[in-house]
């Protein structure tokens, strides 16, 4: 059983570490800021290029998004462009927890501070849960905050109809179901990889492999060959959650006292 007071102490310490670690803090703050502002910059460019839309483009987009039939052509282009940014709200909860988890564990390996922690009555489940929550939460909050900003900006700059486009069930399923599931897998991958390497950047590069399928979603959507709808996102969220739970179990085995003290080098 996990004790709340101990879990809170671990999460609090991890947050303190994030706030005081400039590299880590920047990796939490900068990507959401860029990803929230990038679509707005792109809309300015698209405003001048809408007239050069290929002839079969409208049919292709409407085939995947029949709910956009009421949109004039220029708004259809904008809606399609906006749709491509959905994936950024999946990358954020994947990348940020990975960065935090790897920095946290590799940092403790380098300073050998875990032995002192393990010599307290803390249970390894509590330690793992605390580190996982502290890694997952900033990624999710950053993604959701950036999404909120993007929805607001879309409503203000592009009008209420575009705000509706980015709050369709597809977006909600992706941002609020698949995002956290990717975050879970990301944290688990961070823990597993960090136990085997001694450098946070190496751990991130190896752990970053889990983001490749997410990038794949961007590609298939951009070429219009396959439309990922809300049920598909929920299905992927379920698969990723199962994968995440499985990986967390492996991570928990790796995170045992004996393993940390005798095998982590």
């Amino acid at each position, binding site marked *: 059983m996990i004790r709340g007071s101990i879990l809170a*102490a671990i999460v609090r*310490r991890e947050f*303190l570490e994030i706030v005081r670690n400039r590299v880590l803090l920047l990796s939490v703050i900068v990507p959401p800021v860029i990803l929230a502002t990038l679509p707005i910059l792109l809309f300015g460019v698209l405003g001048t290029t809408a007239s050069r839309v290929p002839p079969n483009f409208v049919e292709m987009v409407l085939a995947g998004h029949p709910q956009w039939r009421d949109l004039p052509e220029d708004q259809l282009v904008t809606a399609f462009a906006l749709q491509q940014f959905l994936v950024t709200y999946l990358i954020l909860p994947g990348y940020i927890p990975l960065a935090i988890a790897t920095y946290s564990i590799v940092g403790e390996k380098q*300073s*050998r501070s875990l*032995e002192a922690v393990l*010599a*307290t*009555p803390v249970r390894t489940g509590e330690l793992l849960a605390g580190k996982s929550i502290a890694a997952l939460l900033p990624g999710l909050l950053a993604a959701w905050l950036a999404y909120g900003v993007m929805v607001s900006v879309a409503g203000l700059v592009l009008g209420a109809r575009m705000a509706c486009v980015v709050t369709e069930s597809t977006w909600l399923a992706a941002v609020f179901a698949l995002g956290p599931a990717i975050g879970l897998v990301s944290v688990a991958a961070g823990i597993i990889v960090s136990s085997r390497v001694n450098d946070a950047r190496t751990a991130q590069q190896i752990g970053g492999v889990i983001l490749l399928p997410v990038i794949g979603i961007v590609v298939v959507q951009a070429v219009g060959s396959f439309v990922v709808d809300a049920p598909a996102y929920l299905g992927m969220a379920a698969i990723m959650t199962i994968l995440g739970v499985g990986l967390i179990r492996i991570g928990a085995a790796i995170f045992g006292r004996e393993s940390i003290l005798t095998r982590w080098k």
Partner: protein
Amino acid sequence: MVRAEGLGRSFGSLWAVRDVSFELRAGEVFGLLGPNGAGKTTTVRLLTALIAPSEGRAWVDGLDVVERADEVRARIGLLTETPALYERMTAVQNLDFFGRLHQVPAGLRAERIERLLRLFDLWDRRNTLTGQFSKGMKQKLAIARAMLHEPAVLFFDEPTAALDPEAAFIVRDALETLRTMGRTIVLSTHNLDEAARLCDRVAFIRGQVLRVDSPARLRQAAGGPTIEVDLAAEPGDTILGALRVRPGVWSVSATAGCLTVVVEDVRTETPGIVRALVHAGAEVLGVRETTATLESVYFEVMCGQPSSGAFAS
């Protein structure tokens, strides 16, 4: 307070330690002495319920280290070889975090943090990031961290190994303070001077416990208190005989005008020995007391070869 019975731990087919048995009384400072790789850290980890034994059993404060590991860890304080502090946190934040892990109530936690930081002269630096501390300060803070929850037993694993002489002095001073406070301490070290000065008893370890006793008794067993007497001439049988008949004298040997007399007690025997020598016609040039050092005992136990320099003045 701490009891080990046939404790052993293997990693794969290799045994790090085996057949470790000893008992530690409350208020005792107990040293684990041995070279690098002798199994001292493994023994400490076994006794602090960090790793499980492959064989044997151990108890801390009456609790089995395997069956009641969580409770054992709540009753011990461990100082690891490196201070292992969170360097982006202040001294107070470090102690506060560990106090929370030990579930020390907030008010009591604040009170103890202040008391310990004052005890180790760190109160004025309480809000400084520990990354800016000197090695000695870090080690003192790590000792404070180990004491925060008022553990029944403190385990110090090589507390001065990585320190410069000045920092090591500061840490030894802190250990002396704890000793005078009557704390029960297990001190793992390969610094024999440190062990001789701080420990009530020591265990020589090299894969297994080779010998356990007080430093004084170990030194005595290695040769006993000894008096060396420089004479003007080679002593004859009369002189040697005059000493051998004395009840407090254990052995007498002579080498090139120097008598080596092993006695029961140096202070009570020396005047009588000098009188006996003068009475027997010897011309005494000088008298000095010598004892076996813990170092000489260490080498004798570890290498099984009493060296020619086993006695030092």
